[in-house]
């Protein structure tokens, strides 16, 4: 009979979402047992920084998401390098791959995403990697020492860009194959994609758009030596990165009968369809405040915030997730671009934009509300627009100013900036300045 241990809070996953929950739980409950289990053997590291690791800019110690003493200091038992194989939500237990079982009172599924690996002929060959985990980065690193001159990256999204940058720094000649007509097509508009493509060209990265890879080939005993595109062209390469994207890692949840759409469906408290079970991060389909519905937004900030909200609710402090949306700050090859919400809106949306030399600002509007934004170059005041979008503030009175060169807090209506800065107009004025507008 296996020994059953009991955790008041069991967190499966040890990345941003799990950490966010653990920190919130400890804020609300100093004593309850917290156990974190992760299939990865490392203390929490910053997943976006695996490209810096691969580029040899930072070693592991420098990409840790929290200090090394995080678990000890917070009284958290971390079980790292072990998989959970099954959940019993009725009994409130989790089974581990080593046969042990753990009982829990509240459970968080922060299991993240798995790389999407399409059925391309030859995908099993050696020299083909995903780029999602630190182990992926380590495996690619080892492979590079075997002598890699040329790499093909399949997918021109966020993962593809970040691995391209790392590989260029390692002296590899890179070609990106993107199925759609432009890179970063899900998060940028045409203009910003063009800026990125221009920059890629400057650093010697080739981009093939509107193409897919039909076959990953080998002339030498299973190790990749070339790829063949759908139009029959052959590109020699010693390394292939599958960078199409991630999909929610829902296996545990589906086995336990938890409601799943594309990801695990959660409500405003990050609770799943199953009592006492919560989910957050890349595995969850949570509220998107731009679209007004549940969507996948697999980015770190949303994972952390969702985890934080889940953690408070698990500890009995009722807290609502304000929602997240797609939002990214890109800095590939030194070019600063931020985007959020609908960067490339349908035709019936209004667009306010201004060019400032090579830089530009674009804000997408609908019925006076901000629904999307792209700032390229000068990004320092972009957060103000993001805040207006998040807080659903009507911007009709000053919308032209949003994309202006000198845009700032003072460009908003006086009523709004006074509320933001808690600066009422006269001593007799009621301090209606609601800091809740800002969450500040």
């Amino acid at each position, binding site marked *: 009979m296996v020994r059953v241990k009991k955790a008041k809070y069991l967190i499966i996953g040890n990345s941003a979402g799990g950490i966010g929950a653990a920190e919130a739980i400890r804020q609300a409950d100093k004593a309850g047992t917290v156990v974190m289990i992760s299939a990865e053997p490392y203390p929490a590291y910053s997943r976006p920084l695996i490209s810096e690791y691969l580029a040899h800019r930072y070693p592991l110690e420098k990409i*840790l998401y929290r200090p090394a003493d995080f678990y000890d200091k917070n009284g958290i038992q971390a079980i790292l390098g072990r998989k959970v194989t099954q959940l019993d939500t009725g009994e409130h237990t989790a089974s581990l791959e080593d046969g042990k079982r753990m009982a829990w009172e509240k459970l968080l599924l922060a299991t993240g995403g798995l790389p999407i690996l399409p059925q391309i002929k030859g995908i099993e060959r050696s020299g083909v990697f995903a780029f999602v985990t630190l182990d992926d980065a380590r495996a690619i690193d080892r492979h590079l020492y075997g002598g890699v001159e040329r790499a093909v990256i399949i997918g021109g999204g966020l993962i593809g860009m970040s691995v391209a940058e790392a590989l260029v720094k390692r002296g590899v000649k890179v070609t990106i194959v993107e199925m759609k007509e432009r890179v970063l097509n899900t998060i940028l508009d045409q203009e910003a994609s063009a800026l990125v493509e221009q920059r890629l060209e400057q650093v010697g990265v080739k981009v093939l758009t509107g193409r897919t890879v039909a076959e990953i080939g080998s002339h030498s005993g299973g190790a990749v030596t070339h790829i063949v595109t759908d139009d029959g062209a052959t590109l020699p390469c010693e390394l292939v990165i599958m960078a199409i994207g991630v999909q929610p890692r829902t296996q545990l949840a589906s086995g336990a009968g938890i409601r799943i759409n594309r990801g695990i469906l959660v409500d405003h408290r990050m609770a799943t369809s199953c009592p006492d079970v919560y989910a957050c991060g890349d595995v969850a389909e949570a509220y998107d405040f731009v679209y007004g519905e549940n969507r996948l937004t697999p980015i770190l900030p949303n994972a952390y915030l969702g985890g934080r909200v889940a953690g408070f609710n698990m500890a009995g402090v009722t807290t609502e997730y304000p929602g997240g949306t797609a939002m990214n700050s890109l800095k590939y090859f030194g070019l600063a671009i931020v985007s959020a919400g609908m960067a490339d809106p349908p035709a019936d949306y209004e667009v306010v934009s201004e060019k400032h030399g090579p830089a530009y600002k674009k804000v997408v509007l609908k019925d006076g509300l901000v629904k999307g934004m792209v700032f390229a170059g000068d990004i320092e005041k972009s957060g103000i627009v*993001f805040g207006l979008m998040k*807080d659903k503030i009507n911007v009709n009175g000053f919308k032209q100013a949003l994309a202006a060169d000198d845009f700032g807090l003072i460009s908003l209506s006086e009523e709004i900036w006074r509320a933001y800065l808690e600066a009422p107009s006269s001593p007799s004025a009621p301090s209606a300045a609601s800091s809740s507008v800002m969450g500040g």
Partner: protein
Amino acid sequence: MRKIYIKEQACIGCHLCEVYCRVEHSQSKDPIKAFKKESPQPLARLSVEERKPVSFSIRCQHCDEPSCVYACLTGALQKDARTGTVTVDEERCTGCWTCILVCPFGAIRRDVQQGRIAKCDLCAGRDVPACVANCPNEALVYVQNKAGLER
């Protein structure tokens, strides 16, 4: 915690808060050297916004619910549980600018030269931040809460 509040009706847009902030965060603490000689160039961690006749300076508000801390990709940004100050560990900041995208005040600046952010630290080590202490028109105040703010 004490916060810096603006009294915009007293602000004359002289930008001295920027000057003193920059000097305070320089190596030499000397205005001439800070502006002309130092490398890396120290940055002001606040900025003056103007739309005549109104002007005021903007810096990190050290929010109770700091979006920047939650969004930080590396863990460099933290809210100090004891003091309430939002701090940045400069060693761990990689300059990804995600915090800039979520700061509703537009209060975080890019230190491009050093590849990291520059933000108000309330002048760690000083009782009263340099911008407040040196504002010639007392358009900035550093008080416990806004109830103590005479306008």
